[in-house]
C-alpha cells in the first residue's frame, strides 16, 4: 500500500472512547480522507507564537498484531505534579486491543486509525504529520 493510498481517521476526544471509523467510510461521503487531518495541522500552524519550552509529543505506533504496555508509555509521560505536557498520539492499523488501556493511562489521547495492512513506517509518518510537538518521540509496539 502506498502512502498516498493510506486513509486515516483522526479522532480527538479527551474522555470518551475513541470513535473508530472505517477508512472506506470516506468513499461514501463528500468528506475527503484528509479532512480528518486538517485540525491538527492547523493547530500546529496556529502555535507559531514563541514559547519558552519545547512542546513535546509522544507517538505510539501499533501496526497490526502489535500491542504496547501502558507502563511503557507511562514512563515516557511526565510525573504527576510536573508542569510539562505531552501530547500522546496512538497510531494503529486495523484493530487494536491496546486502546482502552492506553485511554485510561492517558486522558488526552489522540487516536489515529489506518486501514489494516498499513506498514509501521507509514503509520509513523502519518502520525508525525499530526504531532504538534517540537520534540516528537516515537514508540513502537511489540508483536503479539
Amino acid at each position, binding site marked *: 500500500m502506498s502512502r498516498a493510498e493510506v486513509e486515516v481517521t483522526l479522532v480527538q476526544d479527551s474522555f470518551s472512547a475513541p470513535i473508530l471509523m472505517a477508512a472506506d467510510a470516506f468513499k461514501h461521503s463528500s468528506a475527503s480522507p484528509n479532512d480528518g487531518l486538517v485540525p491538527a495541522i492547523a493547530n500546529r500552524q496556529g502555535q*507559531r507564537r*514563541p*514559547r*519558552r*519550552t*519545547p*512542546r513535546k509529543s509522544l*507517538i505510539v505506533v501499533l501496526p497490526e498484531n502489535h500491542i504496547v504496555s501502558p507502563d511503557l508509555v507511562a514512563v515516557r509521560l511526565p510525573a504527576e505534579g510536573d508542569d510539562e505536557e505531552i501530547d500522546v498520539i496512538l497510531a494503529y492499523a486495523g484493530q487494536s486491543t491496546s486502546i482502552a488501556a492506553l485511554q485510561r493511562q492517558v486522558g488526552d489521547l489522540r487516536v489515529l486509525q489506518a486501514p489494516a495492512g498499513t506498514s509501521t*513506517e*507509514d503509520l*509513523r*509518518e502519518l*502520525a*508525525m*504529520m499530526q504531532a504538534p*510537538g*517540537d*520534540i*516528537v*518521540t*516515537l514508540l513502537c509496539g511489540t508483536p503479539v
Partner: protein
Amino acid sequence: MLSVVVSVRDAASTLAEVLAAICSSDLPRESYEVIVVDAASTDGSVAIAARYADTVVRLGGRESGPAYARNRGAELARGAVLAFVDGDVVVGRDTLPRMLRTLDERPDIDAVSASHADNSGAQNFVSQYWNLLLRFGEERHAARCAQFAPGCGAVRRNAFFSAGMYDEWRFATACLESVELGERLLGKGYGVLLSSELKVTHLKRWDLGSVFREVWFRSRLLARSLGYSRMSAAAPSDVVFTLSRTLTPAVALLAILMLAAAFVPTPDALAKGGVGLLVLFLTNMPVHRFYASARGLGFALMSAPLHAFVQIVAGVALCIGWILRDVFGDVSPDATTQAYSEVGHEIWPPVPRRL
C-alpha cells in the same frame, strides 16, 4: 547505549538512504537510539525522519547551522556515546559497531571519526575531485589529530559535554565546526582519532559553484576564527584544510616569480604565466600523484586546472579572512541573537549559546 544524532536541513533526497543505513547497522536495535534534528526543512525531511527515528526534533525559525542542531540532539541523547552523522552520509553496516569497539578497546581515545570513502555518492567529476581531495588529507594523516570529522564521528558523552559541545555561537554554517571541536577536545586532554579504515560515503553532489563556495568559507573561517597557525599546530594542515600546507609556499613562490618575471625584458606574458603555473603544479605534485593513482592520469590532468583555481580562491579567501579578523574580529551572531543571549531570553528554539 549509543545515541546517533542526525542533523538535517532539506535533505529529503538523501535522508531515507542515510537513516536506512544507520538502522541496518550490525547492532541490536535496542542498543542505540536515532535522533533526527530537523532545522526547519521545507522538503518533507521530517516525514522521512519519522519513518526511522526514535526522536525527531523540529527546530523552527532561522537556520542556525549543524553545530546548533547537533547540540540540540545531544541534549536529548541518552547514550554514553554520541555519534553524529550528517544527513548526506551513508555509514556501512560495521561503521558504528567498529567505532564503539575502538572506544571500548582504547581508553586513550575519546572521539573517533570516519574518513571519506574512495568514491563519492555523486559520480560527476567535481564531486569525485572534491571527495578525493578530502580523502587525500585524511589518508596522509589518519591518526590522532584534532580532526573530529563532520560526516560521521562518535564521541564519549562526558568528553563532548566537558569540552563544551559544538561551538554554535561562531559556527552558524556548516564549515569546520567539527575541526574546532576536535581541537577543543585535544586541548582538554581527550584523545581524538581519525581512522582511515572507517569509511563513509558522502552523497552530496558538488558542482563548481558549491566547491568554490566551500573553499571560500573554509579558508575565510580558518583565517578569521580558527587561526591558521594554531590549527596547523593542532592538526596537519592537509587534514584541516586539505590545501593549506602547499598553499602558502605555492602562493609565495608564485608571487616572487611573477614579480621577478615582471622585470624580465621580454613581452611574452604567456611564458611568465606558464612558469607560474608550472611552479604551482610542481608544488602540488603529491595531490596530483594521488589523483593519478586513484583515478588515472587523465583524471589527474583534468583536475590540475581546477585545483589551481581552487588554490587561488583559497588564497584570496585566506587574505580576506585575515583582514576581517584584524578589522572586525572573530565572527559572531547578529545583534538580535547577541541581545537575546545577553539578557538570557528563554525561548524555543533556544538562543545559540556562547562557549
